[in-house]
């Protein structure tokens, strides 16, 4: 579960953002739609605790997650948040399997190879596990990053433009998988996008 209240953020005195309150329960989905320049990525980074809001509160998994120290924030991120980016990025020197295991390692959890293989077959890239990530297509890479975000059974999954670099076919597939997988672990799924194709896929939505 993730909620925010009265979130404000400013990069400088001229560039100031005020965000609408958001709330997404466990097992629910939320679409945040907005044109570029409206602070979509900023909001996502605030929710992911990568940025500190000027004012306002964030609660993650029923705990206050704003106004905490950066090492606490790192810990909350490791345990409770899975992030999916617009374009999938990986540790290029590592294989697909190793990349998926990284969140386990950084969160100090057991490196669950069985789970990684299971997710890989669920998401349809089981045959690529030993390859380097740059040998995969964009659609495949995005599916690998979904698997990576799911590895720690996060409470919240944040997706930043997960479909904008994908064609219609892959877009549908990726969004279905995202919804299905987050429902399986009972997480809140928050998708930030300008991609109008996703409007009909979500019941709850917020416009920036």
């Amino acid at each position, binding site marked *: 579960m993730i909620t925010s209240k009265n979130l404000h953020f400013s990069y400088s005195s001229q560039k100031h953002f005020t965000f609408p309150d958001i709330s997404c329960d466990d097992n629910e989905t939320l679409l945040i739609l907005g044109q570029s320049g409206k602070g979509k*990525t*900023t909001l996502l*980074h605030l929710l*992911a605790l*990568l*940025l500190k809001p000027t004012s306002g509160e964030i609660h993650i998994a029923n705990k206050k997650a704003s106004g905490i120290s950066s*090492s606490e924030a*790192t*810990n909350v*991120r*490791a*345990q409770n948040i899975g*992030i999916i*980016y*617009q*374009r999938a*990025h*990986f*540790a*290029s*020197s*590592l294989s697909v399997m*190793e990349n998926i*295991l*990284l*969140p*386990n*390692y*950084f*969160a100090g959890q057991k*490196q669950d190879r069985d789970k990684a293989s299971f997710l890989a077959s669920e998401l349809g890239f089981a045959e690529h596990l030993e390859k380097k990530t740059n040998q995969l297509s964009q659609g495949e890479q995005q599916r690998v990053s979904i698997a990576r975000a799911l590895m720690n059974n996060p409470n919240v999954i944040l997706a930043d433009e997960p479909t904008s670099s994908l064609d219609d076919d892959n877009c549908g597939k990726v969004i279905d998988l995202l919804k299905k997988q987050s429902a399986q672990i009972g997480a809140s799924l928050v998708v930030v996008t300008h991609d109008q194709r996703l409007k009909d896929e979500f019941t709850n939505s917020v416009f920036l």
Partner: protein
Amino acid sequence: MNLFKISIANLKEKKLNSFLSALLLTLGIGMISLLLLLNKQLDEQFRRNIRGIDMVVGAKGSPLQIILSSIYQIDAPTGNIPLSEVNTLKRNPFVKTVIPLSMGDNYNGFRIVGTNESYSEHFEAKVSSGKMFNSTMEVTIGSKVALSGTLKIGSTFASAHGLDAGGDVHGDKKYKVVGIFEPTGSVVDQLILTSLSSVWDIHEHAEGEAHHEEHEESVEHHEDEKQVTSALIRFRNPMGLIALPRQINENTSMQAALPSIEINRLFSLLGVGIETLRALALIIIVIAGASVFISLYNSLKERKYEIALMLSMGATRTRLFLMLLLEGLMLSVIGYLAGVVLSRIGLLAFSRAAEKDFHYSLKEFSLLPEEIYLFAAALLLGILAAALPSLGIYKLNISRTLAEE
């Protein structure tokens, strides 16, 4: 998955950069290590052989040449001196022992040295099998001569004129091997020792024949003027060091040379070259450090997004800093190990050449204490070169890096 594995994967990803850094480090460390090894072993070899020899007298000429030829058996002698003058020295109150030497022939490149028992006693060479040479034309051979395989106890051979293999063979008179020395680690190992009379016999005969044809009367002259090449002298007390050399140089036909002075001179001459090589090696090591620095700096720039990504997954900055440090450290360790191996290969090659030309071998391959300091220095270099660019991790703005892409 752990830091170590990620670091190795990163090094492998940048194979050429890693290779260059490790190669430079290998060269630098290898050179310094080789210099240390050579310096130590040459020094040891040289000091070991002059132990207990206070002065050498030979024919007038370069004192260094006298030392090299009479003690180390690696240069040509300066000429001959009359035995009578050497015998006069024996009566000098400062002089404790006089060991006469007579060189000029070889067998397969091993020098045949005419002397008496005091020579082998001086180097504490014990006969391991057979016996000491006793009468004319009997020889006792050093351990390396025996190992070379052609000579055994009982075998006979003809010597060749000159000090290198391939001179005229004195075919008519043959030496007989009667004993083999134990290995001593000194110059004796590579020598064939015989009595002074054997050398006189061979040359009087040869020269006598030649002279016989041309100058009949000179044969007689040779009979009473016996000559030797040089003599190793030990003083009774240090006072001899002050008085005798000058006395000999001024009043006799001989030249006195002091081993300790000449060896120090030789080392200071070599020292210039060694210093230059050492400076070169240090420069290479510094370049290696710069190479580690640059390659990590560049890869950090390229991997900025990766680093931010790992931070967003919950990695701590310190952990990622350690990961990069580990990359520098691994390069140092690889470079150091390869460098030490390289220096041993170099030593082996050098030893082969020295063995072939001078019969000296340098075969101490164990790790020197200085090389442990060298290891510490290599690690420090790796840490420094990796830490400087990696400190950037602490300044990295995760959100901006992820947003910029």
